[in-house]
């Protein structure tokens, strides 16, 4: 039986399958469909300093092999998270990793400081890449100097595993990867959504209220794979890969490219049990190939 466990920046994961922020709520809604204890971890919905209502409806559009969203970080803020949500999820038998967002360095720092106090949260994922917010979000994720600045500021106050989630809407993903590594990140997660647009031809209007939004789903997988591979070669810290993973084979491809773990996102909407099926599929692959442990598979892509 293959060993699915993997150590990422000192944090032990029972397996490399986690779920992506914004696609899994805080875990609760999925308890009807799967045993959360089968997952390596859950990246919960983004938490910001204050309550955010998010963008106006419509917030989504179906696109070929994917979808656009412009949810806009709707959440009730850090106070509500600590008081109402954390107590309900802290005892799930899987890592709860909190996605942290903000429009100013101060906001990121404030939220990170508060999450640092939560004993059962072993890591945060700094969301510097959300493309849906007018202020801050986009800029941090696309300018290396700002990416370093926000990572370093959070690093000062956050004592546990600091993951930073990169935006793909940049000219050089490796520049951003190096920037956040310089800022003190322990892990890089990538990719967030690609900036896209949908038009209703009959109405001659954009489908999304915000005109543009974030593209996710199988359509972005080739871009995500390419970026995971490039970043894995460019930095020495572990990488977690996401972007269009729909099945175990997709997940394996990301691991081969250099990801130590994966996040399953949009696929959860199609099949709420997909994350567990992917865990089983990875185990099956390892057994078929007589590979003893998933950690042996990380970054083994042969290019000669």
């Amino acid at each position, binding site marked *: 039986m293959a060993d699915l466990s993997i150590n990422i920046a000192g944090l032990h994961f029972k397996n490399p399958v986690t779920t992506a922020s914004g696609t899994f709520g805080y875990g609760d809604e999925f308890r009807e469909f799967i045993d959360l204890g089968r997952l390596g971890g859950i990246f919960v919905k983004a938490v910001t300093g204050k309550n955010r209502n998010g963008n106006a409806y419509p917030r*989504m559009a179906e696109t*070929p092999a994917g979808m656009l969203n412009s*949810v806009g970080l709707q959440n009730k803020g850090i106070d509500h998270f600590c008081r109402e949500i954390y107590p309900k999820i802290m005892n799930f038998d899987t890592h709860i990793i909190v996605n942290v967002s903000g429009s100013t360095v101060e906001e990121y720092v404030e939220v990170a400081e508060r999450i640092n106090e939560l004993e059962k949260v072993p890591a945060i994922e700094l969301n510097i890449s959300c493309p849906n917010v007018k202020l801050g979000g986009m800029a941090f994720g696309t300018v290396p100097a700002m990416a370093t600045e926000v990572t370093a500021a959070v690093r000062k106050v956050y004592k546990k595993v600091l993951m930073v989630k990169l935006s793909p809407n940049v000219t050089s993903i490796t520049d951003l990867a190096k920037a956040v590594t310089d800022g003190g990140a322990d892990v890089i997660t990538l990719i967030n959504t690609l900036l896209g647009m949908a038009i209703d031809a009959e109405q001659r209007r954009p489908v999304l209220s915000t005109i543009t939004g974030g593209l996710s*789903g199988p359509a972005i997988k080739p871009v995500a794979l390419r970026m995971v591979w490039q970043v894995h070669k460019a930095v020495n810290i572990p990488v977690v890969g996401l972007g269009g993973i729909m099945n175990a084979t997709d997940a394996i491809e990301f691991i081969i490219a250099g990801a130590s773990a994966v996040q399953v996102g949009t696929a959860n*909407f199609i099949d709420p*049990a997909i994350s567990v099926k992917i865990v089983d599929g990875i185990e099956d692959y390892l057994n078929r190939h007589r590979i003893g442990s998933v950690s042996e598979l990380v970054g083994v892509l042969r290019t000669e």
Partner: protein
Amino acid sequence: MEIKKVVRDLQVVHSIRLNQRHFILDLQSPDTLPLILPGQFAQVLVADSPSTFLRRPFSIHSVDYSRNSFRLLIQIRGEGTRHLSELTEGDLLNIIFPLGNSFSLPATKEVLLVGGGAGVAPLLFFAQLLSQNHIHPTILLGFRTKEEVSEIEEYSKYGKVLITTDDGTEGEKGMVINHSVFRSGLPGFKKIYSCGPAAMMKAVAGIAREHNTDCEVSLENTMACGFGVCLCCITPTDKGNERVCVEGPVFNAGRITW
């Protein structure tokens, strides 16, 4: 009450073509059906359709627990629904159901149901439940044209049916909101339930408000997951954004920020 949601492959028992744009799928579950209430919907996976990706949501049209079956009334709008219209007996559909909340039982017998377009779907199920509770609603249904008027016999089992067609080929001419039942000051109705295009429901909600009549609407916002996690289907209410797939699709009309 927490209603159990399931993900299951259901078998098409038959597909009934009502007219050019509408058909009914009668679907049977291999296992006992969970409890389903009128107003709830199902998320249907359209497989083998290269241009569709997300599930398609449809209100539950009727339920037959003795056969572990339910029906979906579907309007053909695009690739996904066109593909579903071609399914035949024995085909399998993977469905997540039942989703959302339900119409609440009224505290009065003076009930008006108003439906337009594909929105009529949950009203048959609800009319059946009302009838079981000794309430016989007036059922106002709007269609485009005579060719699309369908299932009137079914609805008539549960209450008095009034019809409008856009082109006047059957019933009163115009949209449901133009029907004489509204012009005569909403005679005696103490509760209205409405389901259909947003503009129609907004207009019905407005009339209900004018006459101080309680009104529930079932919204049709576009959605990705259908079970509360993506936050795409929200509607603004007096308590902030609420999810049409969890806190809805049925809402008290007065709470919606139209």
